[in-house]
């Protein structure tokens, strides 16, 4: 399918997404969806459309909201970047590990570095921060200024 065909089909399927798909250049599509419609759009894109690969999940701090981008790719080389915005207070997203087992590590990264809760994430070790990283410190947030030197020391130095 070409980029134009993908755009037509998505906008045809979901009325509220009329003119929402942006084709920035060859093989790059961008789409913002409201948070409550994310699940159905995601399922449609990955099951009924050829966007069968999840490349990675990017989380970013946008000031009043957090933006989460799911980078989906087709075997033909087309990437569709699907973005949702979630509110800054009590941020939470649903885990996609039931559909893509590779989403596990990308969601752990978002949880550790941005402090966004991931509902339904299976049990496991955290990534990428240390086990003794202090709670409440989320490095990728824009208002985070760094750890103080005492907190940086290892357990042996504390003796």
């Amino acid at each position, binding site marked *: 399918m070409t980029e134009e065909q993908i755009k037509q089909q998505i906008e045809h399927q979901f009325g509220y997404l009329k003119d929402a798909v942006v084709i920035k250049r060859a093989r790059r599509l961008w789409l913002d969806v409201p948070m409550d419609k994310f699940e159905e759009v995601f399922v449609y894109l990955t099951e009924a459309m050829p966007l069968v690969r999840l490349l990675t999940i990017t989380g970013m701090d946008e000031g009043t909201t957090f933006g989460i981008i799911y980078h989906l790719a087709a075997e033909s080389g087309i990437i569709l970047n699907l973005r949702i915005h979630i509110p800054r207070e009590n941020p939470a997203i649903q885990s996609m590990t039931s559909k893509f087992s590779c989403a596990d590590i990308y969601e752990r990264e978002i949880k550790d570095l941005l402090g966004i809760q991931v509902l339904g994430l299976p049990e496991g070790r955290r990534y990428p*921060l*240390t086990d003794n*990283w202090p709670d409440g410190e989320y*490095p990728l947030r824009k208002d985070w200024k*760094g*750890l103080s030197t005492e907190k*940086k020391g*290892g*357990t*042996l130095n504390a003796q």
Partner: protein
Amino acid sequence: MSILKKIIRWARIKSPWIIHFNTGACNACDIEIVAALTPRYDLERFGVIIKGTPRHADVLVCSGPVTLQTQDRLLRIYEQMPEPKFVVAVGTCACSGGVFQGCYSVRAGIDSILPVSVFIPGCPASPKAIIDGVVKLLDSLEDKPKKEMAPVLPKKELAQGNAT
């Protein structure tokens, strides 16, 4: 010095065994360390062998800025080495943090945690520099008189008190 001590020191100088640990580096320095052992540079002609366990090693060759995750492991490895032991910091990241100075997950160079004997700068340190560093370490163990460093400016200009 007694004969036994002389023999032991000779054995240490002629055949130092190293252990290599990567404290969170980008791997360029580690590859140059391994390349120093391959046929073109051949560190093994100095009697150097890479051992897998710190308990057999004399020299700890370390690369990388110390990340918060690896600092405890680094100390653990250092403690397991028998005395006397030396630490060689390979690469700019190991000397001072390099490109990653100021990152939240990085603690500056290795000398913030361990006493370092030799610093080998470079990004990455080329195998020639690594060999130079190891040879300097071995020379410092012998009681050789230190070679006088050649002055940068010719002696005449130094005597005149620096050209302009």
